[in-house]
């Protein structure tokens, strides 16, 4: 999604003279065009994430909405207090851009993974976390972020292109069963591609991808699907606590929906204490195609 992100940032910077971009010394082979096109509004703040977020808050106070870019765990965890205090409680338009959310940095190891980022950020006041699932979602998310003028987090990963025309919005309706669905699968982020693959050939399963945490809205389509299926499977590249499954369960319970079953597949950390690429960690956590197929067939039987 870095390519789509850089292209959209370029066009936003061309039309909005106030925007400022800060990077924590990252962006090789992605941000060079922005750096050369907007030298006054592109700041390499060095390997100093806490200061970078404080700077962004000061810039935002003075009327410059900011993007703050780093590898997801460095942007989120290292600078958490600055995000909480300097940005969020003042409702400043600062977007924390975390590249490689979840296991996106794969073999780079645990230091570079962010599987609790949404649990950390989504409860903060005024904060909306945007988690694009497909490459095309990035542009939509950035438009929302700039328009909203508040604190936000953009969790970038390696997203596939849209498999076919789908509805863009807070909820991507990826697949809709023609008839009565037997199961409603709800995903977040690039792991949607595993769900899509696992569901190939199944005609009685709905698939939705939710773009934000907190969940901004549950569409009539998703509520209708769950009301009919009464079975929900959540797939998220995030630990169980504080992620999509918990948010969703609370909202569905409040909406009075009665469910026959509610299952969630989550990031499980490093169960074998070994490391590999993103697919390897997805498999370790049961977020791989094979396990999703297995769970779907169990729930769908």
């Amino acid at each position, binding site marked *: 999604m870095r390519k789509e992100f850089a292209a959209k940032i370029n066009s936003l910077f061309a039309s909005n003279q106030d925007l*400022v971009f800060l990077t924590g010394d990252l962006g090789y082979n992605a941000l060079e065009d922005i750096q050369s096109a907007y030298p*006054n*509004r592109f*700041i390499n*703040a*060095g390997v*100093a994430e*806490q*200061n*970078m*977020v*404080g*700077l*962004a*808050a*000061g*810039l*935002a*106070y*003075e*009327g*410059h909405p900011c993007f703050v870019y780093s590898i997801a765990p460095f942007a989120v965890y290292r600078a958490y*207090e*600055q995000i909480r*205090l*300097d940005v969020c*409680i*003042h*409702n400043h338009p600062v977007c924390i851009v975390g590249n490689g959310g979840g296991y996106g940095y794969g073999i780079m190891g645990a230091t570079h993974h962010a599987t609790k980022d949404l649990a950390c950020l989504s409860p903060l006041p005024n904060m909306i976390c945007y988690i694009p699932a497909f490459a095309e979602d990035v542009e939509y998310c950035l438009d929302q972020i700039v328009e909203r003028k508040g604190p936000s987090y953009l969790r970038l990963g390696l997203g596939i292109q849209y498999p076919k025309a789908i509805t863009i919005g807070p909820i991507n309706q990826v697949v809709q069963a023609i008839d009565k669905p037997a199961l409603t699968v709800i995903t977040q982020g690039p792991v949607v591609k595993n769900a899509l693959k696992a569901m190939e050939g199944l005609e009685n399963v709905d698939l939705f991808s939710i773009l934000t945490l907190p969940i901004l809205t549950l569409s009539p389509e998703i509520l209708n699907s769950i009301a009919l299926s009464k079975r929900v499977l959540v797939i998220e590249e995030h630990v169980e606590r504080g992620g999509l499954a918990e948010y969703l369960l609370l909202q569905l319970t409040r909406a009075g929906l009665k469910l026959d079953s509610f299952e969630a597949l989550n990031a499980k950390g490093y169960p074998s204490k070994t490391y590999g690429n993103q697919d390897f960690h997805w498999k370790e956590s049961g977020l791989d195609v094979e396990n999703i197929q297995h769970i779907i067939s169990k729930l769908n039987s």
Partner: protein
Amino acid sequence: MTDFNSIQLQLRHKLLKLYFDANCGHIACSLSCLDLLIALFNQKRTQERVILSKGHAAGALYVMLNHTGEISDEELGTFYQNGTKLSAHPSANSFVNIPFALGSLGHGFSIASGMSQSKKIKASSDFVYVLMSDGETNEGTTWEAAHFAVSNQLDNLIVLIDRNRLQGFGETADILGDTSNPIKWQSMGFHVQEVDGHDLNALETCIQECKLTLNGKPHVIIANTIKGKGVDYMENKMEWHYLPMNEEMYQKALASLEREYHA
């Protein structure tokens, strides 16, 4: 010339009353930086901002803003009470001259640097002021922000360090060493001045000197101060970071102020 002696006494009276009425601590660290705030607010343009990074000295800021008319007497009287906008550390979104909630140390310098960077982008001639404690220079973000300010040539940024040489649980020299030592700031590329932080004329001269020295170097004024300045029994005593005054102590403190500032 401004009658500084009278302002120093008047605001110290208000400060002591504020803390006595609230029966709370943070008196001495407010007294150590009160004169710095008087100098800053006396010099700054209306639209310029002072960032009180040492938020635990909120009382000093509140009496200063009461003096300038931004916080009414009635509002000041709500300090520390339930339902107040005047919490023990400054809170967000209530007063123009309290632009950020501060009190977790090591935040204000970065924020002020961002504001200074914005002035550079907009080619504004305004300055940004940040008031830090010397203990606060223990924080790693101080050094992140310091390097950023130098490398980005923020000569519109004026950092004041309230160097009272005492911090939360001991003397700064005994804890992490003298982290606000002028040599460190000099070596990083700051325009450094050292001054008696209770001499308002000297402070004003320093601030003027910063404004006239626009050579790409950010400014730091290391203000040597006395924790508890003006109240003899509090001066240079760490415990007065924390202690509240009883009636007898309050009366003694007022008498001490009279001796110090009416002599």
